[in-house]
């Protein structure tokens, strides 16, 4: 059985970024720019998500002939489900925090 994904803020950021365009293939540098995560944080998360079967990987040839092929990523079906659950969970947490602050 695959382990559940790490629920760290950084993992949530990556999952949310991938979920935004779940049908599209994304690249490491683009994800890094979108999430503001350095490669040292991003790649361990991508490696773990791929190991857990939440991320699909593929090599895409470059549009510019002189450049090497790019490793591309997108969420698998279970990755989409997990990402949605985490995003909803985060929204619920934020909402309850706001409510408790307002009632104080």
């Amino acid at each position: 059985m695959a382990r559940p994904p790490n629920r760290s803020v950084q993992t949530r950021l990556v999952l949310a970024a991938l979920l935004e365009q779940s049908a599209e293939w994304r690249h490491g540098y683009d994800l890094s720019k979108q999430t503001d995560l350095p490669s040292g944080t991003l790649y361990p998360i991508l490696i773990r998500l791929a190991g857990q079967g939440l991320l699909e990987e593929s090599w895409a040839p470059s549009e510019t002939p002189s450049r090497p092929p790019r490793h591309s990523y997108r969420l698998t079906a279970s990755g989409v489900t997990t990402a949605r659950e985490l995003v909803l969970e985060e929204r619920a947490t934020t909402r309850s925090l706001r409510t408790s602050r307002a009632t104080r």
Partner: protein
Amino acid sequence: MTTRATPTRRLADSLVRYAARVIPGVLGHWAQAMQNELAYVADDREALRWATGCVGSAHAARLRHLYLLDIPTVRAAGIVLAAFCAFQMTFATAMTASYRLHALGAMDVMGWMTPGDDYRRFIPLMEAIPAWLHGLLLAAGACYLVATFWLVGRRRAAYLPLLLGVILTLVTRLLERPFIAAVGVVVVPNPSLLSAVLLPIVFPLLLVFAAWSGSRREPVDA
């Protein structure tokens, strides 16, 4: 016209190549991914930051995939320890068997390995210890022996016989106490922490942990 790479870009390239060497073999395509992605980072400083992060990722991945017993000195120490435990657990039975078979030469040699250098003081104990307790001692020794061979053969399930050996050692040590107390023989006059706790229990348990934790990981250079 091709533009020459700046020193910053060259440094970034070197760092990513270094990361590719560090990353475990099973994640080789990720190293390639990091390396190729660098070509798409236009700014040199940004490329250097990217490459530095890749080095961190590669080291983190290597640590996660590290199997302690793949380090030759650690594995050698583990093999010696398991063999020593096998020897220690079978020693009392071997000595008792020699005594029962009247093999006095063997008794003398084994006596030199005991505190006090004389086997004769153990005679009351050898007569008091029941056969089933020797059975347990031999079972523990056999577990350690199997573990020794499995460690030599790099079998990742070596933690199983090791753990069984430690459990049997603890059970035997508890069960033999009344017999030792009944005959009044002081087996080890001044037991040290090393001989009483570290060597028979703590070190084998650490070895069990090292073997078990590594058995769940993929090999670094697969």
